């Protein structure tokens, strides 16, 4: 009975959304007087950044991104405080299984390559698809691989929080420098350089590198906290 009710509700919702979207149409220029053209023009002409999405996220909506990074930080803090444990209880992994030597050797081989890929993605965030968030997630998957392959692989929480803090302070500090040397918070105050060079775009690469380190540290912390969660019945 409950499932039929839910299916009816969802059918109504789906029908409503579908009719709305058939009215909108797919692939047509809906926003003739939107901000899109201004953003595309500004990105190339005044910022000299190739990737428009990066320019929007870090420059035009940079303050929004600072809030987003704060939300991520709060989520990690909430996770840590919900899964609070006393100091002497930490250290025993709940996910315990032995991996074969092929897995351990292979993950040792792959780990530097994954870190390198992540660093590449967030350093070239203003030139190619990708950026700080994506690169940070890639680096965190490298740490996940190591944590799954090795039983007693451990990550220092102190180093993670230091990296996270320095990255966050860098982001906010660059914003304040923009306030001092320019007019507004997070305004670009560095020379923009040549389009499609690695050293271009002013403050955008610096902010995205900081975001990359911050996201990598936070996600590694999340993975580590959840993996080291010791249940009552199976621990």
């Amino acid at each position, binding site marked *: 009975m409950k499932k039929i009710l839910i299916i009816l509700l969802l059918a109504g919702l789906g029908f409503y959304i579908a009719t709305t979207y058939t009215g909108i149409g797919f692939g047509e220029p809906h926003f003739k007087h939107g901000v899109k053209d201004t953003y595309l023009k500004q990105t190339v002409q005044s910022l000299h950044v190739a*990737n*428009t999405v990066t320019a929007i996220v870090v420059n035009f909506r940079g303050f929004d991104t600072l809030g*987003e990074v704060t939300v991520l930080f709060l989520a990690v803090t909430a996770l840590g405080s919900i899964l609070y444990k006393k100091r002497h209880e930490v250290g025993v992994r709940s996910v315990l299984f032995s991996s074969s030597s092929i897995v351990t050797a292979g993950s040792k081989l792959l780990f530097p390559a994954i870190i390198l890929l992540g660093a590449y993605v967030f350093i070239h965030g203003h030139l190619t698809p990708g950026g700080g968030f994506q690169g940070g997630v890639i680096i965190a998957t490298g740490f996940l691989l190591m944590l799954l392959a090795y039983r007693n692989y451990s990550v220092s929480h102190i180093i993670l929080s230091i990296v996270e803090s320095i990255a966050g302070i860098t982001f906010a500090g660059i914003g304040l420098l923009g306030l001092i040397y320019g007019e507004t918070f997070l305004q670009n105050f560095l020379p923009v350089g040549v389009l499609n060079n690695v050293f271009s775009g002013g403050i955008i690469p610096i902010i995205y590198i900081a975001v990359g380190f911050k996201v990598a540290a936070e996600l590694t912390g999340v993975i580590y906290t959840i993996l080291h969660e010791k249940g009552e019945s199976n621990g």
Partner: protein
Amino acid sequence: MDNALFDLLDYAVYGTAILVMLIGIYGALAKKSLLKIVIGLSVSDSGLNMLIVAIGYLKGGTAPIFSPGYLDGTNKLMVDPVPQALVLTAIVIGFGVTAVALALVIRLYRHHGTLNIDEIKNLKW
């Protein structure tokens, strides 16, 4: 004939996104396991993100990246970058929601020893 087929495929993009979203909401509402509810929330998040990116698509448009190849070429149409930037934000927020929800599930499991919401009192609707 060709045009009709392509029109259908166009709406298939929206249809897929809406379907993924509805499957996620169904999972969140109908399933008994707390882990499946969290997975349902995450799936509906993905569907919504697909829908928002699909609105910004422009027929014949390329990705909004001014790479050297684009600057030399003749096709100057680009898709809307604003929904993509907003979806980037939404994905990160979705990750935060999933992480906190999983932490709460772990906490409930630690306290009750079960993941079935029928066996946990005060969680029925």
